[in-house]
């Protein structure tokens, strides 16, 4: 079918064997996450293994829309496998990175990569169209290199005999030509040393940050995957694809001639301004916007001094106490070069800093901390901190138990130090679910917290997050929001099929956040993201297009645009609701895997702090306002200062499980829920393991 390369690359590192899986075997999952989960389920027989076990399988999947002109859907790669970040169990999890890796995979003729086993010594994968080699790292001295050096070394090697910017034939004279550099995904020293904070890096700052996939690569002795492709992706209706792209550009994207906003946001309509959170703002030096393959609006920039280039979001939040903007920008580069999970670095550094400020670092159970806090804010300090985690030492090449502890993650370090529960309860260790750092305030944006807790990782899905930003921006400018709370809720709820029209799904008032309505909201987001964002790989920064200020009616293109693109690329008639339904199936499969790993309803709770204490410090927007209905009146209300109710949250879980058709006593999936989804074989496996729900 058009949109697909037709085959998936299967690598067995233990046997150094290269094989293929026909994409058709998994095509009913459409792509990305759905395919990844299905492949994982088939290939990993024992789901209870640790993420570091050689039998763990990592999948890196594209979608039929990858490498196409579909805006903000062309450049992302979905990464899955058993993670090593979450606590106490490393859940089967996902991450995702942008850039051009997925496009290059498709142009090389591959719909994805499946990685099995463990190499006997460090290797990297060299993919040049259909020619795939498992190469030793030693000849290029790749093992030990930072992520940027590693990529440049591989570029030089693959293009040897040619030069970037000219036509090269990386597959030899019989192969095709390209002017492009290979797309390389690599780990840095953090991954090599199996830090649980280690991530995958591609180009300067595309990162699969969550899950610890860098450490998993490291455990498999896999340094990098390089791909360069000279082929093409078939398109069912090229004219329709082009026309649809231009229709959206004309009607829904920013208009440079009539700019309505000048800042970057997580919306389709956002202009191409970098979403950076450096404390002193964006550097006022020459720069350009920078976008992933095919994106209509880049969300990062490249700078005249190259510092902080391509960094955005969390990687720019790190080291907010830097003494200067230049130092903070260089800190963003550091975590990319060493290959570290930005979110955990942000909240981990806050934790260590608070312990130090309150004299707790010198308590008996904590090994000697080699950091000199008189230099806090300096480049030297952050350099040492980053290296401590990347190398598991004192950051200067010497052994350090403290460095080793935090290299394994901050919650595990706190556990070793005998203070995990205490610090989670007080809130200074801001990792309220599964040992994962907080991101958005779960007491206010409850769908974010619920989704994370009912899933496997910080959801990091901004589908509804922009609402508070829009309100905050308007308020800061002394204006009224462009739309009332009720108008926003109506537009969004109307698109949330099959629950459309239920406005209370977006009612964040105290009396509604444990309701059936909120269970629908969380369910919808789980289904929507599992399919449309993580399987079709529509980018989280630009989709969905719910509310669009460029339209007279303010109604965005989501629900209409996505199926048009699928039709144009694949020829398949596939509605927005079809995608939600397939998302439900994928969500059920993932939940079944977590159940096989040991998930039980009783485990699904926030850290006590979320129930007992108000937030210790505000996250992103202080006193963020959300839509709510109080005394029958819709408006934007501040909900950031409340706590959640443990018992009521427990009742919410019952409502949520019932909505899924799962066993409300255990949270286990039931046959009645799985079979209609075509997951009878999953029910069989659960039953065999004594984990099939009964009601």
């Amino acid at each position: 079918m058009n949109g697909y390369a037709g085959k998936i690359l299967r690598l067995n590192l233990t046997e150094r064997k290269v094989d293929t899986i026909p994409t058709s075997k998994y095509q009913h999952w459409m792509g990305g996450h759905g395919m990844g989960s299905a492949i994982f389920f088939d290939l990993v027989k024992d789901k209870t293994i640790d993420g570091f076990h050689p039998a763990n399988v990592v999948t890196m999947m594209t979608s039929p829309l990858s490498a196409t002109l579909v805006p903000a859907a062309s450049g992302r790669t979905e990464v899955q496998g058993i993670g090593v970040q979450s606590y106490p169990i490393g859940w089967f999890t996902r991450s995702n990175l942008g850039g051009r890796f997925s496009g290059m995979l498709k142009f090389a003729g591959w719909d994805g990569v499946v990685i099995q086993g463990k190499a006997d010594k460090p290797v990297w994968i060299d993919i040049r169209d259909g020619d795939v080699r498992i190469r030793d790292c030693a000849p290029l001295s790749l093992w030990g290199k930072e992520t940027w050096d590693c990529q440049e070394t591989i570029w030089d090697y693959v293009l040897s005999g040619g030069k970037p910017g000219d036509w090269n034939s990386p597959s030899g004279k019989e192969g095709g030509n390209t002017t492009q550099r290979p797309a390389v995904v690599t780990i840095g020293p953090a991954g090599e040393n199996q830090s649980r904070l280690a991530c995958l890096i591609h180009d300067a700052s595309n990162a699969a940050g969550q899950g610890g996939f860098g450490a998993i690569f490291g455990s498999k002795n896999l340094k990098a995957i390089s791909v360069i492709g000279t082929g093409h992706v078939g398109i069912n209706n090229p004219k329709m694809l082009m026309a649809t792209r231009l229709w959206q550009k004309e009607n829904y994207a920013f208009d440079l001639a009539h700019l309505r906003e000048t800042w970057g946001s997580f919306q389709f309509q956002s202009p191409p301004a970098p979403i950076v959170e450096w404390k002193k703002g964006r550097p006022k030096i020459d720069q350009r916007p920078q976008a992933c393959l095919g994106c209509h609006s880049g969300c990062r920039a490249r700078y005249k001094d190259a510092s902080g280039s391509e960094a955005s979001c969390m990687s720019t939040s790190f080291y907010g106490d830097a003494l200067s903007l230049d130092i903070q920008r260089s800190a963003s580069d550091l975590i990319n070069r060493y290959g570290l999970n930005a979110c955990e670095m942000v909240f981990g550094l806050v934790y260590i800093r608070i312990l130090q400020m309150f004299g707790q670092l010198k308590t008996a159970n904590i090994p000697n901390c080699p950091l000199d806090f008189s230099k806090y804010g300096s480049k030297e300090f952050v350099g040492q901190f980053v290296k401590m985690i990347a190398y598991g030492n004192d950051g200067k090449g010497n052994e350090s138990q403290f460095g080793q502890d935090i290299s394994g993650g901050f919650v595990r370090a706190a556990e070793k130090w005998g203070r995990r529960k205490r610090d989670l309860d007080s809130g200074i260790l801001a990792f309220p679910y599964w040992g994962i750092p907080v991101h958005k305030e779960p007491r206010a944006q409850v769908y974010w917290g619920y989704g994370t807790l009912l899933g496997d990782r910080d959801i990091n899905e901004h589908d509804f997050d922009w609402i508070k930003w829009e309100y905050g921006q308007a308020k800061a400018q002394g204006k009224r929001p462009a739309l009332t709370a009720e108008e926003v809720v109506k537009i969004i709820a109307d698109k949330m099929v099959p629950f459309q029209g239920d406005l209370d799904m977006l009612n964040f008032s105290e009396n509604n956040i444990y309701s059936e309505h909120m269970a629908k909201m969380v369910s919808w987001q789980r289904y929507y993201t599992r399919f449309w964002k993580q399987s079709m790989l529509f980018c989280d920064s630009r989709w969905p297009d719910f509310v669009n200020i460029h339209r007279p009616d303010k109604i965005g293109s989501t629900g209409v645009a996505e199926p048009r693109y699928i039709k144009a690329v694949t020829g398949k008639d596939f509605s927005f609701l079809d995608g939600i339904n397939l998302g439900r199936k994928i969500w059920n499969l993932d939940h079944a895997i977590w159940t096989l790993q040991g998930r039980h309803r009783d485990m699904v709770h926030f850290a006590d702090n979320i129930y007992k204490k108000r937030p210790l410090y505000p996250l992103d927007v202080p006193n963020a306002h959300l839509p709510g209905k109080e005394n029958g009146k819709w408006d934007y209300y501040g909900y950031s200062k409340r706590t959640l109710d443990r018992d009521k949250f427990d009742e919410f879980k019952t409502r949520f499980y019932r909505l899924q058709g799962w066993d409300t006593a255990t949270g286990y999936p039931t046959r009645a829920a799985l079979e209609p989804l075509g997951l009878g074989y999953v029910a069989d496996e659960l039953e065999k393991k004594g984990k099939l729900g009964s009601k």
Partner: protein
Amino acid sequence: MNESSNQADQNDRFGVSRRRFLQASRNVAVGTVVGSTLSGILWLDNAVAAIPASEGYLLVDTKKCQGCASCMLACSLVHEGVESLSLSRIQVMQNSFESFPDDLTIEQCRQCMDPPCVKECPTSALKADAKHGNVRMVDKEECIGCGKCYDACPYTPSRPVVVADKNYGGEVKSRKCDLCAKASFHWDKAGGGPDGKRACVEVCPVGAIRFTKKIPSQKGDAGYKVDLRDRNWGKLGYPTN
């Protein structure tokens, strides 16, 4: 192909230094055509056959480009019906680790006043097409895939794309920018060419590619790599000079 061997080939073909030849003819051209509208007027030079000037040109702003390569995807889409960076007539090349503005370049066909690709084509498959505003275009029926146009192009990367064509049973055929004049999968009823719509121009999200009927300066890159940044671009925090 490396630069020195390319130069040697060119010297052989022309009997004199090709670069010196081009430079001489450009020196004649620049003073008379820059900024004027010579569309349709024959370009004459003592040393070359008369080739009418193209009625359209693509200009790019390499400092405004966001590197999304949408132009490349659109180019291959409307011409070949597939998505491919390798089949695109316009090439965007970038390096994540380089500093702005040296991190990125865009290389488009210049529709040269004095097009070596046209002159070197042994079958006249590559010619200034009078039906389409004298755009330098390849007639694939006539193309024998010899690659002389590729070799003749003095720019890097060479603008003609000479590869196997599935529509011709895998025979090697040349393609080059035709300003979408004969794009088989053109989306608009008006079509392309100098009086129609060009895919790369239409799709570019940031307006980093512009079409003009004015003949750009043929000397160096300045006529083709231009400043398309306006006040609103500055409002987004980007340089406008």
